[in-house]
């Protein structure tokens, strides 16, 4: 049948509608909110049961949390009497006056009160450094890296530890505590683990057997044992290994332990990145006559580190959570200050512990969730950048 015959047929037979009817609206039960609920929550009998069970569970958990943290909570008071069921004659939730009173202790530990401005300045300097590095359109980001990895550590040490010559009295590290110590331990771990981790990763992929052997030995050893044993080693064995006159203070021992541990994990993350770089990049660099150091510094590492940023941030999240373990070797980080405060007779009630833990949980949740959002955003940004 040719085209002309077909057209002829249509024009002669008029039972074919030549004008469109307006489309009928979809059934109300299939669209909008009702349709969405039917499709996503109530599609099959099993699904309905599941939805109801999970809904009840969710309501119960959220209600309990709300009840404890807000509705039943005690907001004012001077001591434990305020948070006791026997004096309040009702169910008692979180004991917030305990947190208000102990907040400075949770943040600064036993850092002398007249010197606490130094800690505040440190927090501000650190925040500036972090913002400088993370904000993509910040001016002079190269300078930011120099600031964060070189200037900041020196300035912070002088500021926090003290330097008698310029009029800052020395504050012994035993007095440090709370959020300050958590942040210091995490920051030192972050700042130290990246360079050492890169060196170890390069060492593990080196062609020199001795270098490869020692790097692999270190990485596998540290990754094979729990952090707590590394911390025990740092705290009880490190003083044995150095001459008596250099006995490191307790915080420094913990920092060494954390830094070594984080470096081994960082090394594996960086190594994964190095392995993802195609061989052609190495060969290209060699072909234009670059030696090992410039090849790594200019060609391989920038690409390898760029694709590993999400994994590096994930390692940092793990490190940030792991800083709590210094509690066990007697360093007063945030968790340890809460452990001390919750059994203080002035405030000890059945709800004090849970209140303290809730505060700590919120602190860690905010920081770690923030970091993981950053990692995910970076991952998305890099994926977009790789699409051509």
């Amino acid at each position, binding site marked *: 049948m040719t085209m002309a015959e077909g057209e002829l047929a249509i024009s002669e037979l008029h039972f074919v509608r030549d004008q469109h009817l307006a489309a009928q609206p979809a059934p109300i039960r299939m669209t909008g909110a009702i349709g969405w609920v039917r499709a996503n929550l109530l599609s099959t009998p099993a699904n309905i049961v599941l939805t109801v069970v999970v809904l009840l569970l969710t309501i119960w958990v959220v209600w309990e949390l709300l009840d404890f943290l807000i509705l039943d909570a005690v907001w004012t008071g001077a001591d434990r009497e305020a948070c006791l069921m026997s004096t309040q004659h009702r169910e008692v939730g979180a004991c917030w006056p305990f947190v208000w009173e102990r907040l400075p202790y949770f943040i600064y530990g036993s850092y002398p009160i007249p010197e606490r401005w130094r800690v505040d300045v440190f927090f501000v300097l650190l925040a500036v450094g972090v913002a400088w590095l993370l904000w993509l359109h910040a001016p002079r980001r190269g300078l930011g890296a120099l600031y964060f990895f070189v200037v900041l550590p020196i300035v912070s040490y002088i500021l926090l530890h003290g330097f008698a010559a310029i009029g800052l009295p020395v504050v012994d590290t035993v007095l440090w505590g709370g959020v300050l110590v958590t942040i210091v331990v995490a920051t030192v771990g972050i700042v130290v683990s990246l360079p050492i981790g890169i060196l170890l990763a390069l060492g593990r992929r080196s062609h020199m057997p001795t270098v490869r052997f020692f790097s692999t030995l270190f990485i596998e050893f540290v990754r094979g044992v729990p952090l*707590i044993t590394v911390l*025990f080693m740092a705290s009880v064995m490190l003083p044995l290994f150095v001459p008596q006159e250099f006995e490191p203070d307790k915080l420094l021992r913990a920092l060494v332990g954390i830094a070594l541990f984080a470096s081994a994990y960082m090394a594996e993350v960086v190594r994964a990145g190095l392995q993802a770089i195609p061989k052609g990049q190495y060969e290209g660099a060699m072909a234009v006559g670059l030696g090992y150091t410039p090849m790594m510094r200019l060609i391989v590492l920038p690409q390898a580190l760029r694709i590993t940023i999400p994994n590096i941030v994930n390692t940092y*999240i793990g490190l940030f959570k792991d800083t709590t373990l210094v509690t*066990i070797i007697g360093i007063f980080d945030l968790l340890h200050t809460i452990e001390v405060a919750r059994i203080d007779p002035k405030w000890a009630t059945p709800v004090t512990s849970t209140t303290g833990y809730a505060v700590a949980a919120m602190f860690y949740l905010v920081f770690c969730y923030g970091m993981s959002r950053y990692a995910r955003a970076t991952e998305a940004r890099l994926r977009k950048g790789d699409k051509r």
Partner: protein
Amino acid sequence: MSSEQVTGIRPPRVPLYNDPRVRSVIYQLALAAIIVFLVYGATTNAIDHLQRAHIASGFGFWNETAGFNISQSLIPFSSTISTYGTAFWVGLLNTLLVAALGIVLATILGFLVGISRLSKNWLVSRVASGYVETIRNIPLLLQLLFWYNGVLKALPELRNSYSIADAIYLNNRGFYVPEPIARPGFGWVELVFVVGIVASVAFYFWARRRQMQTGQRAPVLWVTLGLVIALPFIVLLLAGVPIHFESPQAGRFNISGGIEVVPEFAALLFGLSIYTAAFIAEVVRAGIMAVSQGQAEAAYSLGIKPGPTLRLIVVPQAMRVIIPPLSSQYLNLIKNSSLAVAIGYPDLVQIFTGTVLNQTGQAVEVVAITMAVYLTISLVTSGLMNLYNQRMALVER
């Protein structure tokens, strides 16, 4: 034939210090020298310190009497006669017990949550991802302390224990259930149980061979349940229930008899399972998402229902992706069980690097033994997982 003869051009003369091979040897010698120097320095310093502090060295303490009590022990232990060596085995067994149970619980919960995150049910997937995001971002130590101090230690005291029929007690000292004690005649039940296991394994292999040859499937699950559970139960009834339960007796100051689950153990088990499950859920989700959508669609187009599709098509393929990261999560769980020290569960670290280290002062030996144990566990586990991984790996044509 050297390159000189082929090209007729002599290679440029390189000064010795620029020759890559010479350089490499120098670098390696330097590194080895530095490490030898550090190890030597550390050793001499340590010997010096230990001599000055009059601390013995060597492993002689292993056979000395320990003289402390351990709250939970799988093998007989008494503070007056048992040695540090026995304390070591008690700690190791406790670590392995909590790790093994934790792995089972975390795997079940992790798979449930991981699959729920991919559920088409919006509410279920949201709740599952809320669980993962919350649990992953709170330090394990904090969670353990919460379970221990916030939940289990906040239970009522002994006098006001929750109890069911004076047989099950729950208070802040632990959880007590009746202990089944076998009477003569119970041996038959045990015998039938063992026979049931052997028979069900044999049935499994027979069913698999038949399925390979004829394509017919046998109800393996039901037959196994029948052989392993129903049959011994029938024998138990036939033998006149030769078993009696010894209920825990609540006294004024403690509860005696029955099986006791100490709160330290329960807190550690909950904490580890819940924490690791969040990570396993992520591993499972990534594994299932790695199976191409076409596989499930092909199964649906063959008329296979969603349940069997997941069980027979998707999960077996996802397992290949899941197993390597899953095994590293298991290792993390085993290593994390060392946090027991914070809540006083007598695991290896708590007994050894805690009590034994304090009593003997022999830091080097004690820490070395503990680390060696964890290293061995890590190596053995990753070895087994690699073996399993090889069996599961894709066999290319």
